[in-house]
């Protein structure tokens, strides 16, 4: 199984690998969620939703349903 942002543990770093254009809102791309950029899992709310991330220096929160569509490479 390929690893997604939703699989990251607290404090874990990874590099964004890929996602389908139609799965990820443009807004998220504009905030810096692009392949090759670093993502750090900061914290999550109860039920792992929403998830608080640091993507490319921007601190933001997304829902779990979006997080599990963004594939990452954990050995970044």
């Amino acid at each position, binding site marked *: 199984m390929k690893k997604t942002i939703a699989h990251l543990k607290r404090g874990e770093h990874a590099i964004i690998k890929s996602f389908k*254009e*139609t799965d990820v*809102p*443009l*807004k*998220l*791309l*504009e*905030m*810096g969620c*692009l392949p090759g950029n670093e993502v750090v899992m*900061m*914290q999550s*709310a*109860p*039920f792992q*939703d*929403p998830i*608080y991330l640091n993507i*490319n*220096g*921007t*601190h*933001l*929160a*997304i*829902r779990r349903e*979006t997080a599990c569509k963004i594939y990452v490479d954990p050995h970044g």
Partner: protein
Amino acid sequence: MARSINVALIGNPNTGKTSLFNRLTGLNQKVGNYPGITVEKKEGVCKLDRGLKAHILDLPGTYSLNTSSLDESVVVETLLNKNSRDFPDVAVVVSDIENLKRNLLLFTQIKDLEIPTILVINMADRMERKAITLDIDLMEQELNTKVVLVSARKNTGIDALKEAITQYKTLSTNPCVQSSIIDPAYFDRLRAAYPNQLLYKLWLVITQDVNFGKVDRNRDFENIKKGSFAIKSEDDLKKLQHKETVVRYQFINGLLKKVHKIDAANAKDLRSKLDRILIHKIWGYLIFFMILLVIFQAIYDWSSYPMDWIDQLFASISTFIASSLPSGPLTSLLAEGIIPGLGGIVIFIPQIAFLFFFIALLEESGYMSRVVFLMDHIMKKFGLSGKSVVPLVSGTACAIPAVMATRNIEDWKERLITILVVPFTTCSARLPVYLIIIALVIPDQDVWWVFNLQGLTLMLLYLLGFGAAIFSAWVLNKVLPIQRKAFFVMEMPAYKVPMGKNVLITVVEKTKSFVLGAGKIIMAISIVLWVLASYGLGEQFTNAEQIVTQKYASQGLTESELEQKIASHELEYSFIGYIGKAIEPAVRPLGYDWKIGIAIVSSFAAREVFVGTLATIYSVENAEEETIKNRMKAEVNPILGGPLFTFASGISLLLFYAFAMQCMSTLAIVKRETNGWKWPAVQFSAMTLIAYFAALGAFQLLQ
């Protein structure tokens, strides 16, 4: 005559754009709505050198020109429409030093529209602490425009910005990113078809509807959309937009590599430390709960002192006018209609001011995003998000500031739902009604030694109100045919100490908009209610004094007792009395008589009027709760015999007041916030129907 130019302030949310706006314009600003929509429009004037006057427009915060909300589309429309009164001579893009990379995305888009664009880098005072250095000269060269470092907080760099605005004509309008490289063939065809239009502008028009399929009030562009260039499928356009974003980021990354240095070893991150506590799975909720408690205490308790003063002040003005002016219809209109009407508007100011003081603190400090984060999972099930929590909770004190507080919700559907359901929560005006009826029909005894039955009933009513709000939100989310953005992406901004000036301006603005916006309607309705209650037709009304005096002549009443009887008689035969009697057949199945009918109609002014009106009808001498209660206890049901206020009719009344929209002030503010009478009308009818059937069911089952 002073020359004046248009300046548009544009920027990502949380960049301190509004602080800068406040710095530039001071209190010299005006907040209204964009025509036809409820997006806040903030304008102000700033005097520059050489007699130049800048008309400054603070556009809503946006991350890019690819619109996904009403707020953002306002930005695009302002920048695309050259003929608009608001079209800027110069655009000032506000960015902040810590998020420069992301902020520059918007800058490059605006620059490509070939409008003179100044880049402001705000929060420059943080550079040292964050160990950031910038090569401004090189940056100006690469971006082909003026770059100004400011700190709105520390008030530095403002003069340099004003100077740059004054010199706007010297700025280059060359674009900095060639977006056509994302699909050269397509862009070539576009250019060939519309040789006179700016290419990037065409592209924005074409893609505008992909993410946000709603607004285009600009007729010139209709043809482009309908024309052969709409051939790209939505998915294709989305892919191109993704590609555009990538291209822009490539440019920005290249630029920042040259000009921007950060010494990571020296950077401290306060945000992560605070977040560890403030959005902790247990502490986070506990802290939020405490904050809510303080807010609730402020609007419920602290504001009761100024409200009492206002109440007394207006009452004494009324008495003064009534006693010092010659008596006549004009004096009584002034003393009993206009002055109490004004008082009814002013009395809400303390609650509004308190709530917005706290909301401004939460927003300014960056904490509001954490609230959303904590509450999102629970609230999304009901079609709401964390942002609805604060309005819903403050609605428990008063629905009016709560409805105004929904402006912080960006998504229109979510905001509308919150506005529609907030009046279900148990506001403080319901409390006098609840207390007197509970005292009448619920026995004052303990259950299981600890719980008082009356207290339990009150608590159940609070839960009922909140439950009704949440449940209707869920229903509305299913039935309202409004498109909403399907995703949730929220920035978690850095924590900041709120600026006093910004908080003050928010409080003043909100209070002003309530007094001017809803005040007129409240005034009009209170005058209508006054006329209905103090005029009537026929002998019974006009000769009330004579009739009553004759009737009680043999009983030897004191003068004040007689006056009470006359007032009661007049109210019975006033227009409102006729309305009460006319609706009696409708309210009889709920267990009420025409007297309660009158009280319900007149409590439309405000729910707490219920008790006072009953006091007048029953001609109770002093409006002490005990006296009214005893009088109500003695009231006999005209049809069924026996006491009028039984357990069944009492519960029926409680339910009616729990659900009914008995508050003209709330309707007035809903009208203002939704920009029309449609939603307040829907809300009023739906809530009245629910109240009616709930009361009907309760009375018929329990009787």
